[in-house]
């Protein structure tokens, strides 16, 4: 929780592609063109409500047995389960 605003970088990857053990910081939330069936605004709001905001530290703790989905992600002080499809909107560095 002790952190400064992250530097803006161009080489960020979607959290939805990361493997267990990955540690990083959220660079941006970009829900445009997401495959979740929600509008990009709505998915963005839901992600923020669970603590996914720029600068938060993330770590992938676990993944499901089938299709490596869903994933359990540590977001700062909380653990959140979500599917990789939605995690694609979370860009991490």
């Amino acid at each position, binding site marked *: *929780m*002790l952190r400064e605003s992250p530097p803006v970088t161009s080489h960020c990857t979607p959290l939805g592609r990361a493997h267990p053990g990955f540690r990083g910081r959220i660079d941006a939330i970009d829900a445009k063109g997401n495959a979740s069936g929600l509008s990009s605004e709505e998915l963005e709001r839901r992600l923020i409500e669970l603590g996914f905001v720029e600068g938060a530290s993330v770590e992938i703790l676990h993944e*499901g047995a089938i299709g490596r989905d869903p994933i359990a992600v540590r977001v700062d*002080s909380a653990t959140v389960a979500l599917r990789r499809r939605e995690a694609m909107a979370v860009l991490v560095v």
Partner: protein
Amino acid sequence: MNAMTDAGIVRCALVGTPNCGKTALFNALTGSRQKVANYPGVTVERKAGVVHTPAGLCYSVVDLPGTYSLRARSPDEEITRDAVLGRLASETPPDFLICVADATNLRLALRLLLELKRVGRPMMLVLNMMDIAKRRGIEIDVKKLSAALGMPVVTAISVRKGGTDAVMAELDRFVLTSAGDCSWTVPSAANLRTDQREADAIIRASVKMPAKPDTLTSRLDAVLLHPVAGLVSLFVILFVMFQAVFTWAQPLMNLIDQGFGILGTQAHDLLPPGILQSFITDGVIGGVGSVLVFLPQILILFLFILLLEDLGYMARAAFLMDKIMGGAGLHGRAFIPLLSSFACAIPGIMATRVIDNKKDRLTTILVAPLMTCSARIPVYTLIIAAFIPNTTVAGFLSLQGLVMFGLYAAGIASALAVSAVAKFFFWRQEMSPPFMLELPDYKLPAPKSVLFGLFTRAKAFLYRAGTTIFAMTVLIWFLASFPTAPAGATGPAIEYSFAAMIGHAIAPILAPIGFNWQISIALIPGMAAREVAVAALGTVYSISGGAENQVGSMLAAQWSLATALAFLVWYIFAPQCASTLAVIKRETQSWKWMWITFGYMLALAYLAAFATFHIARALGA
């Protein structure tokens, strides 16, 4: 407190994110002085209670459903939003809000709090679970936090005796001001982001976090969320749960059974022979006793569900099951409602409110009654005990327990199959909505709150046994006793009763699935509640047989194994519960879905029982 207390009782509302220990705090504050009812028009539970402070003040408290935001995406969250905003017609708006936060996880709670502040009502913040926060080395500067948030902040350990003293003291000190202007509007993503940044800044300034998160939770999750070990653990937990329901309850059940046996004999000896004696011994004691005997099993099942929930395991189960359930067109979140349906489909269907997508919710509601509810246990145990030999398989597994497990498995398999079919027919082109869920840290359940939950469940069951089931027992006794046999009749008296007339009328329809007219009779009162069928069979057979024998041995003598198996299979599927159908109507706000549920379950029950009966017969049963 200021003079406003004289005008009437002060109302406060507890608001917080899910898993913040809000209900534990509510229980600690109100003790037994609480009432659980429904908000009018919706099936959202309304929990209200009264707090008496040491200084003699009296507050009324409502415990609002947990939410991350006032955006209200589900009926539960709508109640929270409307209650906080004072929009509920049935409810006087709260005079102030008590925001509850898990001290180990403040980020989401403080963001919600900043949103709540815009409503303009006086507020205080309770930092719950301070014991866990301290143990983990989280240091919170309460004074600084209070200054930054502009409201009183107190700490609490809801599960410990005296753990809410600070909250009580603050309630005595709290200066109630009138509500300011409400500037709340539905937050956009940008608003939420700004709030979260502000919350994070406040936390940075007043909270010192340890470098490492909860190590116990990480170590447990390494096994319990492991792709393979996690699933194995889940199935072991479920298997232990069902074996426990079947074996632990036995001594207590025998005790209750014997108790009612003695009561019946006593009443039989005390009362003069005739209608009254028959009514008391056969109708009342026999009927109610045969249902009450299942209380221990229902309590053990609820004990497991409550413990798993309080431990924080239920969300993990949803995580593990999401992909498997997704294959059947169900949402991972449906796992919790469906697991609750093992106890009773009614709370299960009500729990589907956590699923915010309407289609997902409807599918879950549609299949929830297929999960083996506790009301089926009386029926299953009776038939299994009477027809399945009490032997062990592979040296340690009870055959009876295995059959029971099989019946549960059949319920689960059919629920998954039906939901896959429903998804295919009704909304195949729809996207499946997101699965996003917080996984709370593991916590030892507080014995008091578990006992409290068990007590509520037991009360509900006893209330049902005392009202619906009792009334149905009396009705079936009446149907089976009147009109009385004419003078000089040769057959047993029940052959001349109304029950026999109804039974004989529907018997031809049920004959192809191996049911005789006695079963046909028992199924009718069994519509009130499944377990009533046991009492009904008891009444039908004990009257027609004349003797006060065990229902089970009576059935073993009267039914073929094929009939018994068909009866078991009928009960996996049959929509034999009027209350469940009523809840489906209420939750979906439509008759259509209620009739669809009734129709498909009846059709499945008939077809499956038909197949079972004929296959069993062909195999010589």
